[in-house]
């Protein structure tokens, strides 16, 4: 490995990932009941798979959308952050709705499910099958299904939009 230039690259890549991390709207749970939240193992397991992520960013490095087109970095967050969005979307307590954000700003549509990310993940997280594909399905529902769309409009009374919720109120 040639030392300096490559290391510089690495440094920029890592900062790209930290920039992406800043864009993720935090979890928004309802107020905690006396004695703590009730969630069942089955409900938390899906999210736990994604939280195994050790942030090695190998999936980010292998994803062709990021690798081949520098310009994509502006509007594509990459597999590490797709699993983060999926985890929050599937969180039993979350009242946030990030689907517009995922579609419009995180560039989920650019992913063409090559599965390279899943193959390199050292934690064996099924990034494509368990996060990206379900996320794509949810986003599509949200966008094109008028009933779901209407439902969402109504529910917005209780759900803050992703943008509004970027900073979570301190519990």
């Amino acid at each position, binding site marked *: 490995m040639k030392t*300096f230039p490559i290391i510089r690259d690495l440094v920029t890549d890592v900062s790209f990932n930290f920039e992406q991390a*800043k864009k993720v709207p935090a979890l928004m749970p309802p107020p*905690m009941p006396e004695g703590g939240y009730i969630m069942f193992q089955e409900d938390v397991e899906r999210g736990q798979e994604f939280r195994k992520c050790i942030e090695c960013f190998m999936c980010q490095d292998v994803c062709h959308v990021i690798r081949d087109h520098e310009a994509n970095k502006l509007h594509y967050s990459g597999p590490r952050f797709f699993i983060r969005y999926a985890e929050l979307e599937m969180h039993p307590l979350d009242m946030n709705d990030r689907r517009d954000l995922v579609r419009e700003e995180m560039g989920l549509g650019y992913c063409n499910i090559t599965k390279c990310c899943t193959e390199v993940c050292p934690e064996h997280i099924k990034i494509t099958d368990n996060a990206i594909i379900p996320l794509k399905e949810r986003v599509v529902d949200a966008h094109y299904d008028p009933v779901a769309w209407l439902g969402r409009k109504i529910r917005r009374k209780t759900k803050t939009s992703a943008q509004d919720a970027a900073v979570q109120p301190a519990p």
Partner: protein
Amino acid sequence: MTSSYEHHDYDVLIIGAGGAGLRAAIEAKQRGLKVGIITKSLLGKAHTVMAEGGMAAAMGNVSSEDNWKVHFRDTMRGGKFLNNNRMAELHAKESPDRVHELEQWGALFDRTTEGKILQRDFGGHRYARLAHVGDRTGLELIRTLQQKVVSMDTDVFMECKVLKLVHDGDGRIAGCVAYWRPTGEFVTFSAKAVILATGGAGKSWKFTSNSWEGTGDGHAMALWAGAQLIDMECIQFHPTGMVWPLSVRGLLVTEGVRGDGGVLRNSEGQRFMFNYVAPMFRDETAETEEEGDKWYDDHAAGRRPPELLPRDEVARAINAEVKAGRGSPHGGVYLDIASRRTPEFIRRRLPSMYHQFMELAGVDITSESMEIGPTCHYIMGGVKVDADTAATLVPGLFAAGEVAGGMHGANRLGGNSLSDLVVFGRRAGMGAADYIESGQAATSMDMSEVEAAIKDALAPFEKTEGENPYDIQRDLQEMMQLNVGIIRTASEIEDATNQLETFTQRVKNIAVKGGRAYNPGWNLATDLPSMISVCKTVARGASLRKESRGGHTREDFPKADPEFAKFNFAHTTDGGNWDSGIVTTESPLLPMPEELQALLEETK
């Protein structure tokens, strides 16, 4: 103040991005302050990430009998009563709230069948008390705090190593001087308050579970800045580190293996822990294997197996078995879960351990025993702080997490660290904010201190011939392992004390080649002064404490002596430099209020 270095200015500056540092940042940020965090590695990679077993909090989800009083008593007994009792009290009372708070920030703990947070058994805890996520609880903790910090838009300086704290003209802490590891360029930070959250110091021992970060920088910087270090002789050797292959010797095997049914055997296949139950623990420990085995399924059916005694007890027992010639081929003993639980159970409950042994040692723990032995793990000693505010004796300087002393006394119970980080990380954030609001904070840095620190840091480049820092580090680790390791004796400690003077001279004679950008030799050269200062206080404490207590065992004084249970040894320097002399005094323990005293007696 003019400065030719890159400069940043904050209200609260936090050194360390482990659990304690991140929790402190959240608190200070919520008080509306400008907060900066510095880490010498990357955000999300601190030591905290390696914690496996869990986080202790008396929520009573599994054993409804549990409450803060029992947790307090367990912590004090585990610490052999050297603890700061106010810290132990606050910790026991506040940790359940801190766990729930993590859940509100996105942590997903394992659940009971009723949907509450599941709690697991761990050594020294009377009831099942550790909230956990499989065997990757530290990752969950750090990720949750990191995501919270990032969502609050806090500045994080990564790969930036702090060299020294800087005062104002009046002895208050006013900031620090650091350098960027990637470029070697210096940078100064001024702040109204500085919180040390730099973690541990285990890297000065040969066999250690600590990573390259654990060089005790924060301990040393506090000492040099005028704060006191207490209980430095109390070092926890975790009973179960890998002993083989050599390249990973010291790597931790979680206590969860024993909590889930794993037992220790010697080369004769005997469960030897039954022979090592100290009188203090006899009432609550099983007498036979049958009784101990019943306990795993039904805690009311039998008392706890002796494999779950506090860590110092187990580590000493293993040491004794190996010394008696009943060890395993690589100098450890056997940890056996294969003969006791099904492969499915083992893989589900202990996935990281299964992978660790498979990948690193080629051992399938579902069918074979693990070879394990004691490894340097945690330093109970640290900066003396006020329990409620985490303030040190130096105005403007706060400390929380492993770098702070007092909470764990002479020995820490497993799981009590992760909860310590969030309880006292939060309190440090509050303490720093209150201090700033009081209007007493420093406003300018003494630039001569900055220049002096930079001059020291650059000294290794001025020599063309000299010592190699790697040789010094290796020799220091060997020396400390041998002379101030798990079992100590007067002659060896004296030898260590003398050798540390030689090491001081060797460090002054280091020569480093190359540029400052990403120069690991130089990075290490800047770690060594901290390591030496820490080792000196450890050796000093070890020589003065002429008794055995918790993480300090003297072969020549094998018993605990009540006279030594009245104070902590407290160290300062006589010059504020890394090579200054160490001055040691006896610092009386905090008097214990009667209500707390009563708890210890009533639940004995």
